[in-house]
């Protein structure tokens, strides 16, 4: 009861004064200017790659969670110019590699071809020399995982979202189906 009251109080104050739900909705609806500048084919390629890593299952996958948009915006806005260029160059090189080995763009590949190509990328990344810089495969996988599990779909459906736990349970027994609590920051 105390928790519910406290939450009500906090939400009232914050929602009333600082960030009304309407404002949040507006902010979410406004497309990021960074996103608006992104070429459509790049977003389409990222969407298919991210969705191959985290596809639709019993919960929606990366494409549904718009992880490709997150990746494009974060690479543009949050990485240093060197890391940003490395990422886009890596994406382009990977697409060329796909065309060379599968005979077509990753976007046009079948699910089997995509999986085969990613298995190849994974094998190459694992055997890459340490001084060659982080392989694109790991860059892509890392940002896809982060983007998905911090998206609304990933955070609230794939994981167990508990924004206001209200208490601390230091020890509980779990089984093979227990989902992780969503990390919040």
């Amino acid at each position, binding site marked *: 009861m105390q*928790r519910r009251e406290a939450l009500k*109080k906090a939400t009232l104050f914050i929602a009333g004064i600082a960030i009304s739900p309407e404002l949040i909705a507006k902010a979410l609806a406004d497309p990021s200017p960074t996103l608006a500048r992104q070429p459509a084919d790049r977003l389409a390629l990222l969407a298919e790659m991210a969705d191959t890593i985290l596809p639709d299952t019993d919960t929606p996958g990366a494409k549904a969670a718009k992880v490709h948009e997150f990746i494009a915006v974060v690479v543009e806005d949050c990485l240093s110019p060197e890391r940003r260029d490395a990422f886009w160059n890596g994406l382009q090189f990977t697409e060329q590699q796909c065309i060379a080995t599968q005979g077509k763009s990753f976007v046009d590949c079948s699910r089997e071809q995509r999986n085969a190509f990613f298995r190849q990328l994974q094998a190459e990344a694992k055997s890459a020399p340490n001084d060659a810089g982080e392989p694109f495969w790991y860059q892509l996988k890392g940002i896809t995982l982060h983007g998905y599990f911090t998206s609304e779909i990933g955070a609230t459906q794939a994981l167990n979202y508990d*924004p206001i736990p209200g208490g601390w349970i230091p020890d509980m027994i779990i089984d093979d189906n227990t989902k*992780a609590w969503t990390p919040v920051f």
Partner: protein
Amino acid sequence: MKKRKYDAIVVGSGISGGWAAKELCEKGLRTLVLERGRPLEHISGYTTALTNPWEFPHHNQPAYEEVKKDYPIQSICYAFNEGTKHLWAKDSDHPYTQVKPFEWIKGYHVGGKSLMWARQTYRWSDFDFESNLNDGHGVDWPIRYEDIAPWYSYVEKFAGINGNRDGLRQIPDGEFLPPIEMTVVEKHLRDAIQKNFPGRTLVNGRSANLTQGIHGRTPCQFRHLCHRGCPFGAYFSSNGVTLPAAAKTGKMTLRPYSIVESVLFDEKKNRATGVRVIDANTKEVIEYQAKIIFLNAGTLPTTQILLNSPSGRFPDGLGNDSGALGHYLMDHNYRAHVSGDYEGFQDHYHKGRRPVGFYVPRFRNFGNDQQNAFVRGYAFGGSVERGAAYHGGTWEDGFGADFKKAMTRPGRWSGGLFGMGECLPHFDNKVTLNLEKRDQWGLPTLNIDCRWRENEEAMVKDMLATGSEMLEAAGFKNISVYDTHEPPGRGIHEMGTARMGRDPKTSMLNARNQLHAVPNVFVTDGSCMTSGAAQNPSITYMALTARAVDFAFNELKKKKL
């Protein structure tokens, strides 16, 4: 030029300034609280407190260009992110000079760093207050544990500190709310340490987060988003706790955007008469007068104000007969990180996000554990928890449906220890005024010339060794041992540049935090610290502040000020 009169002036509204304001106002003194930064209201000012990760444009990562331009130093702090960036002072607005690398972390708004602090609260012990006398590094503290103990109790009861009564001399027990219980693997680590390393103890962390509602505040909801400001008022901050108490008396005038240029001094009376303020927005200069002045601007800003208040009587800064002002800068040394994974307890988990972990109080150069490589010692903080599996997923094989399912599972038990080393007071670790480089308000900036020295370096090596041997003894795997090589400043425990002492020839302040030479000026922020100990210092600032106000009020009544 406008003139204004008050009974007392408090410079700064952070951890110690908030306490000075509350205590002065509750004693009935009309008190002006000057804050250099913007207003920030409790609850309504915490604009990101309930924001979900996906509601931030970059899911809580700060943007590169903005960081590079405005926050190159602040962004190094562990608590800086897209959801907290508005709480840090822009480096671009507040320049200083790093003669040697020193990361100066700042929060310029009402409440200061009391909003973003890590809330760890350990009493200092008799052992700490005697350390300088015992080994000859630094001057002797003019107080002992018994002088401050009742004031620790006083501030703990109001602030609300959770913890376990462990009966340890290094961290005396206080007035605790119930502790926040450890995870199963932390208890396992605790037991392994107890069995294998006599003299070392792992205990519950102690922090200023409520585990029971007190004084109308709500207990911790275990979100662990403290750094954004707590809408429940569940952790101690000036904004949520001391400033509301001060405001309730009707005696407080809080003036934001007020940069204190200097303290005004009357040579005939040998008293400070007030302060000169520059309005941060209009640059208007205003003088305020008061009978007593508390400087609580934060260690370096307080030192800067004193240095920038020269007079015929004090050509080197107010009250600086000793030449100690600006010297003996200390921080805590957080360089040593030891972490690992634990493979057992796979069917155990936890719920909620704690605002505190565990603590290993100092054991080196304590009791039978005497070391030759260094004097003093260090504590460890740490935690062992399970995150989500996706955190380590980048380097795990796989992709696709099965991989996705595996990524949604609780992660490995992982965690470890980070060292918190005592730093010795060294004359050459110092700050000076840079008259050549002025800020946008025309004030001289600071040169900071400070580095870790041999004792601190030796301690880092030892922390890495003892930290890893404790994890090994508990059966941790994949142990990683890491020296961050971070410079001083990043500990955000800058202390000592206007130190207390018994002798006016070697220190600035007496046993009551009163300038030896100017009796109506008190300094109770970190600049007053004579040694650094290994404990987080904020609770000690709170206790010293309440104690100094009590003394100042009695002296005022006796008409001695």
